[in-house]
């Protein structure tokens, strides 16, 4: 497939397939198109040429409701978290359940467990702007996994948090991969990739010059 925002091709003629249960890093210089590729992967953007299949379905054939259902199977940690600032952290984390029409009251135990898993047990009623960068990233991860999706996409999840915190987050993502979930992390943090390689069989894709390439094993 290929993608362009209108002014020249950003991603040109790339062929890629992500097998279920794999762990990928997506790297490349800033502006290379990492976020764009992730947006293609959860149906926010449609390829401008070629074909993109998500869960074996052609995205172009999906209507908006189809895309919405697709997103319930793909958990996304957005670069800028995308919280609703008027809702508490707990309500934000439960939002995917709410909009899917599922009972949040019935998922309280699940929610509490998830919040302590990401280390936010005492912060349930805090509003998003009251959280630190690391807390926000972990809350975003909790929201991404509350629907038990098959795929987790994380866009620069360690972008503005310290090393220790990014290690905790990586650990959570590795844990999810061990549970059988496909994980894709966009990052330009090579330290994070190195740290991951000791824990999980991670593959590294690099976007450069409109192309995607499998990065060497020497990273």
């Amino acid at each position: 497939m290929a993608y362009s925002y209108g002014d020249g091709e950003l991603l040109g003629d790339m062929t890629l397939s992500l097998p279920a249960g794999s762990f990928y890093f997506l790297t490349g210089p800033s502006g290379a198109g990492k976020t764009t590729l992730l947006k293609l992967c959860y149906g926010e953007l449609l390829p401008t040429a070629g074909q993109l299949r998500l869960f074996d379905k052609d995205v172009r054939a999906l209507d908006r409701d189809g895309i919405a259902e697709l997103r319930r199977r793909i958990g996304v940690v957005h670069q800028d978290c995308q919280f609703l600032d008027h809702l508490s952290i707990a309500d934000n984390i439960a939002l995917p359940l709410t909009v899917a029409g599922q009972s949040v009251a019935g998922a309280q135990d699940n929610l509490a467990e998830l919040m302590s898993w990401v280390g936010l047990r005492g912060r349930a009623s805090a509003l998003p702007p009251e959280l630190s960068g690391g807390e926000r990233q972990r809350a975003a991860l909790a929201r991404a996994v509350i629907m038990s999706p098959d795929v987790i996409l994380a866009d620069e999840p360690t972008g503005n948090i310290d090393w220790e915190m990014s290690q905790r987050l990586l650990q959570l993502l590795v844990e999810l991969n061990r549970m059988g979930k496909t994980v894709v992390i966009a990052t330009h943090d090579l330290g994070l990739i190195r740290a991951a390689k000791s824990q999980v069989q991670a593959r590294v894709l690099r976007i450069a010059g409109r192309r995607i390439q499998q990065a060497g094993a020497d990273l």
Partner: protein
Amino acid sequence: MRDVIHLNKITDFIIGDAQAERAVPPTGFTARLTLFAAAVMAFLAVFALALSVSAARLSERWASELAQSATVRISAPQGQMQASSEAALVVLQTTPGVASARVLSDAEQRKLLEPWFGPEMPLEALPIPQLIEIIEDEEGLDAEALRLRLLGEVPGAVLDDHARWRAPLVAAAARLSFLGWFSIGLIFAVMGAMITLAANAALAANAKVITVMRLVGAKDGYIASAFVRRFTLRSVTGAALGMALGVAALLVLPTGGPQDSLLSGLGFQGASWLWPLAIPLVAGLVAFGATQAAARRTLKELR
């Protein structure tokens, strides 16, 4: 929206999902605008409705009075009264447009005169003309032709179709009733337009909320219903308030005076008091439709 609306769907709609409600933040001024607009429009609708209903009632009553209020008045010397009356009846029976004609009894005539002379008046002592009441059929009678015939055949007989002056009033009352309904239509159209404006403002103010809800898998129908529910309930509430105020204002309107006056007769009678209850319901339907359309349109544009 293809499936049938069941009662439990309506109750679900009214009770709603508190959790879902909170996803869309309170929409300050649009809430107040909707409530206010619905209340004012409902208040006006009560009066337009009262006008329509009263005018229709008057027009009906006048029309039925008109149909039976021609009379023939016979003035004749005491001895010839009977003969003249009979001659007039013969003429009337062969006049097209006359359904029936009847000589009024003394008692009836006395009753007609009572308001002017009082009950004690010895009417026998007065040379009172005899009255014949004519009931017209649907075609109506040709007053001029009848007048000429009476002039020739029954001296002293005069056709009096005094109620005829009311014919334009009947038409006017009917027209007024129509204008009342037309105004009600306009009132609800304006209500729909205001609610559309308010809903559009609320949707635009919540573009970011809509984006986030979509990112976590919300369908358009779900997002739209959060807005539709709010605006519908608010409009019904506002309209109920406005309707109650309008009805209260009608209740304290001075009554009495002649029965057939539009001014003192403005209002509802009997079962027609139920009419205003339809106003909040219609307001709810209008709000539902307007918000639904606004939400669908906005959600389509916000890709």
